[in-house]
């Protein structure tokens, strides 16, 4: 039992967080709870504190909308949290699609699809930044927030809270895409919101730290990591994971039997330097 907890503690905590948030949102619509109202696009805590999706607000700005004060406050709160503290934690601790793509990634490993498709991945992880830019460009030209109309994240989350319609089809597409077409396809390559939080969260304080002296090079961390490129220092150097693409999901920490990985608060000055050097050389 102790090892189960040890090997899955963060996974359990993440699922608990993700599902609790869904329950709170669902309760707000179904039973009038006021703890957390709205959905991931924009919500309100206890009817007082606003929180808004900064990428959605950017698209609205590109589309030519006037941004209201409540929206700007909500965007600031969310942005500051991920910028200063959480990093890209939205993706692994909040986003409901994460549960779908994690399942796909797990099945992919179990069904040994990874061994069949062992060739170089046919898409670059930079794709998401282009999708991000394209989302803003289309918002500008079409005069509406473009990604918000196709986002499977909103479809699933809004669907769970307000009624899903055919939204399950979008979720199924993501699942099949990740399972059969591209490993970590949606969250790791395509999703512009993930790209946005990668850029926003790259200076945040919470980081995974690697202790090279304790590492036995078993590479279990690289197998579970949905963004393997961020673990370039494994077995080489004792530095934190500084890439913004790390989702702070902590799977690497819990699968490590050697205690060579642990959460830490980033040491602002010296770590920054050594980390940046490696980030550019991936």
């Amino acid at each position, binding site marked *: 039992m102790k090892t189960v907890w040890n090997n899955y503690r963060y996974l359990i905590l993440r699922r608990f967080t993700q599902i609790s948030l869904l329950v709170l949102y669902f309760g707000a*619509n179904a039973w009038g709870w006021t703890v957390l109202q*709205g959905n991931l696009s924009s919500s309100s805590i206890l009817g007082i504190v606003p929180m808004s999706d900064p990428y959605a607000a950017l698209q609205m700005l590109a589309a030519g909308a006037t941004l209201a004060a409540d929206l700007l406050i909500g965007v600031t709160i969310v942005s500051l949290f991920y910028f200063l503290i959480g990093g890209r934690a939205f993706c692994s601790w909040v986003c409901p699609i994460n549960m779908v793509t994690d399942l796909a990634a797990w099945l992919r490993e179990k069904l040994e699809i990874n061994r069949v498709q062992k060739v170089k991945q046919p898409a670059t992880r930079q794709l998401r930044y282009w999708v991000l830019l394209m989302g803003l460009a289309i918002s500008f030209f079409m005069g509406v927030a*473009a990604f*918000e*109309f*196709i986002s499977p994240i909103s479809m699933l989350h*809004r669907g769970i809270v*307000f009624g899903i319609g055919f939204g399950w*089809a979008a979720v199924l597409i993501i699942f099949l895409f990740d399972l059969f077409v591209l490993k970590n396809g949606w969250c790791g390559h395509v999703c512009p919101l993930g790209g946005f939080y990668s850029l926003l969260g790259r200076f945040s304080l919470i980081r995974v730290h690697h202790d090279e002296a304790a590492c036995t090079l078993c590479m279990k961390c690289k197998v579970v990591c949905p963004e393997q490129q961020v673990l370039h220092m494994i077995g080489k150097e004792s530095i934190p994971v500084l890439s913004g693409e790390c989702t702070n999901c902590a799977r690497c920490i819990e699968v490590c039997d050697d205690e060579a990985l642990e959460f830490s608060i980033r040491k602002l000055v010296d770590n920054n330097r050594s980390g940046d050097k490696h980030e550019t050389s991936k």
Partner: protein
Amino acid sequence: MSEIRPNDKKSREPLTDRRKFILNMARGVGIAALGGFVWSAYVDEVTASQLMLRPPGALPEEDFLKTCIKCGLCVEACPFDTLVLAAPGENKPLGTPYFVPRDVPCYMCPDIPCVPVCPTGALDEESVTTDGVLDINSADMGLAVVDHESCIAYWGIQCDACYRACPLLGEAITIAYEKNERTGKHAFMKPIVHGDVCTGCGLCELACVTEKPAIFVLPRETATGRAGDHYIKGWDKADEKRLENAHSKTTKTKISNRSAMDSLNDAEDLY
């Protein structure tokens, strides 16, 4: 075989960086064009629907689509479950709030709970405020329209269900009495909607007794025409204000080279 070999050799040579760069760029442009067009086409398609009734205080549809963040706070604030968010597969702008009066109309709460919760101003408090107080009677969600063919009151059967259901009874809908020439001794009692008062709440649509409602709410833009600058109510001083900014246009087609009189009297091109 000798013809193929040189090609083979060529393909085994490593690509130059320049060539790689150009090919990668071309690939990128191709994917971006494909993705961009499909994405734009889809967005264009789902935002084309004009037949949705929005919550009170909603901005004009085009601005509303820009500004609504699709959070559903208005839906949660509505005590009557009137508002719903468009779900995938409904062919409506995804995630935006709307209501269907025949299912649940807007009951016109005096405190309009759905509007102040909007974080983005897509539901504009200003537009439903009169003298600093929220005023649901100034809301403009749509306009009720009567289909004279299926309205049984227009047949001569007595029915005033919509008139009675209207929250602005006697203002938004009035009853017009007219002699029924068919029987010679009865009166028509026809419901007349007054567009300047009607808020589009849809209580009339819900109350209508016909199988498919003979009175129904449409977005005002869909339900109304526009006289334009060419006509004026000469007997109405206020109407002249409407044309204050009107300006004439000089056409530059071939026919307008000559004066209108000459052009009309000239029968040459008729034969």
